[in-house]
């Protein structure tokens, strides 16, 4: 495990050091990988721990991006990012109670529907305001954005680790296994689920803000794109939900695959993606993390 930790620290260090020696292209790849790690790891704080599968995490990403686009130019970008994280968390807190009463497959489609509802409402608001996409000028330097994103990936990973190994995480695991039994032995299920929901929303908000600054263009249909939600879920599940390294491996694996195929053969990439998903569900239920664990002999 100590070797493992050292490896992860080296990886994060490499990511942060890329601007000093890497090309713009490499920086772009590292930014993407860090972004997906941060998102998948945040998702796992709720969905891997409690088994409540969210198919709507794009909504937090989108809320973050929207808040950030409204605030840049008014306050320094650092604060805009924090506000993006805060608003996403606040949004989760507001919708959390009614949403988390719904379980199983209903929760999956409810989160998806909610995310789409917000997307269409924002699209409506923007078109009513006569805006068809907003440009942002005066964005921070690319390496600054990269450092922030790597920082978020590290933060999300540490957060997910801390949750899993805490009293909080033990309570969430009990909720995943049997909610009624958990409540009977004193686990405050409603409060814990809500806290996990809020925790898993905050970093995606900040990620949305940063991604916006990088592209310097906001368009609601893109910022709330449901493909983001699907990608998060597939990365986390293919990576493996049993440990924190799962989402990291999943994000890196998919980023690699997409770099190899996406730009040249987008349709082939999607077909390979689909086949990969099927193969993983049927033959590698513990995900990449489980594979690595078996090879390394460690848990």
């Amino acid at each position, binding site marked *: 495990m100590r070797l493992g930790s050292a490896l992860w620290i080296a990886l994060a260090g490499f990511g942060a050091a890329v601007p000093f020696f890497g090309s713009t292209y490499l920086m772009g790849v590292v930014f993407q990988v860090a972004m997906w790690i941060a998102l998948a790891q945040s998702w796992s704080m709720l969905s891997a721990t409690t088994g409540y599968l969210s198919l709507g995490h794009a909504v937090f990403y989108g809320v973050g991006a929207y808040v950030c686009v409204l605030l840049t130019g008014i306050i320094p970008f650092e604060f805009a990012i924090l506000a993006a994280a805060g608003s996403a968390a606040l949004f989760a807190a507001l919708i959390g109670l009614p949403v988390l009463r719904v379980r199983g497959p209903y929760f999956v489609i409810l989160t998806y529907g909610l995310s789409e509802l917000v997307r269409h409402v924002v699209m409506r608001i923007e078109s009513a305001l006569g805006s068809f996409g907003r440009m942002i000028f005066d964005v921070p330097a690319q390496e600054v954005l990269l450092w922030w994103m790597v920082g978020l990936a590290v933060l999300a990973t540490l957060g997910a680790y801390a949750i899993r190994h805490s009293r909080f995480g033990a309570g969430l695991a009990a909720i995943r296994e049997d909610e009624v039994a*958990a409540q009977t*032995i004193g686990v405050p299920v409603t409060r814990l689920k809500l806290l996990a929901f809020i925790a898993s929303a905050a970093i995606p908000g900040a990620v949305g803000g940063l991604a916006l600054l990088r592209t310097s263009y906001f368009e609601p249909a893109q910022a709330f794109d449901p493909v983001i939600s699907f990608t998060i879920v597939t990365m986390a599940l293919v990576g493996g939900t049993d440990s924190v390294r799962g989402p990291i491996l999943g994000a890196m694996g998919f980023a690699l695959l997409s770099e190899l195929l996406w730009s040249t053969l987008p349709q082939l990439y999607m077909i390979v993606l689909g086949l990969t998903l099927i193969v993983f569900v049927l033959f590698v239920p513990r995900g990449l993390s489980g594979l690595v664990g078996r090879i390394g002999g460690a848990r």
Partner: protein
Amino acid sequence: MTLLDIKGVSKRFGGLMALSDVSLQVNKGEIFGLMGANGAGKTTLFSVIAGHIPPTTGEVVFDGKRLAGLSPDRICRLGLCRTFQIVRPFAGLSVAENLRVAALYGRARKLSATEAAQIVDDALDAVGLADRRHLDAGRLTLSGQKRLEIARALATGAQLVMLDEVMAGLNPTEVGTMLDTLRRLRTERDLTFVIVEHVIGALMTLSDRILVLDHGECIAFSTPEEIGRNERVAEVYFG
């Protein structure tokens, strides 16, 4: 001293009166038995007391506190915990991890990791599951899962434990072991038990007092000897 005071509790499901005007007091340190045929209202009474369903009328007072409107987890932290007739282990977690959650969340006070570990070890020893602590709870035998239910309730630090048919499905040897375990727990840990049981012999030998429910109504409330002589009970049970 009265630990649990149930005052005129009724529960109506649509047109069905699952409990009608049930009153009883459980004393500290007592083993209190609940008898009744299927559908008599025993499990409903448990669910009302533990806060899973609200009573239609009446109230439950535990250790001087009214439980009306409290959620099951709050009630557990006050020191009252139930088990389930159909066992509900956290199947994907190890036996020890099942108990650790109970230790960490079962009481009002936050525990340190070492305190929690101590409680887990105690609870494992109390029901004889120490050698299976690393096994996934879903892989225990039925008898093992029943004991896990009890151990988990113990690990919450509850003063009063309500056991819903913990002996159903066990063979006679296992029932004997379970009886010994419960008696020992009562004396060693100063616990109070309310037990629902279909195994009437076990209930008779174990309980200090017994209440018999029939169609939601209390038809007898007395010591095991007198219950054994009660004609109405005999009628309900043996036709």
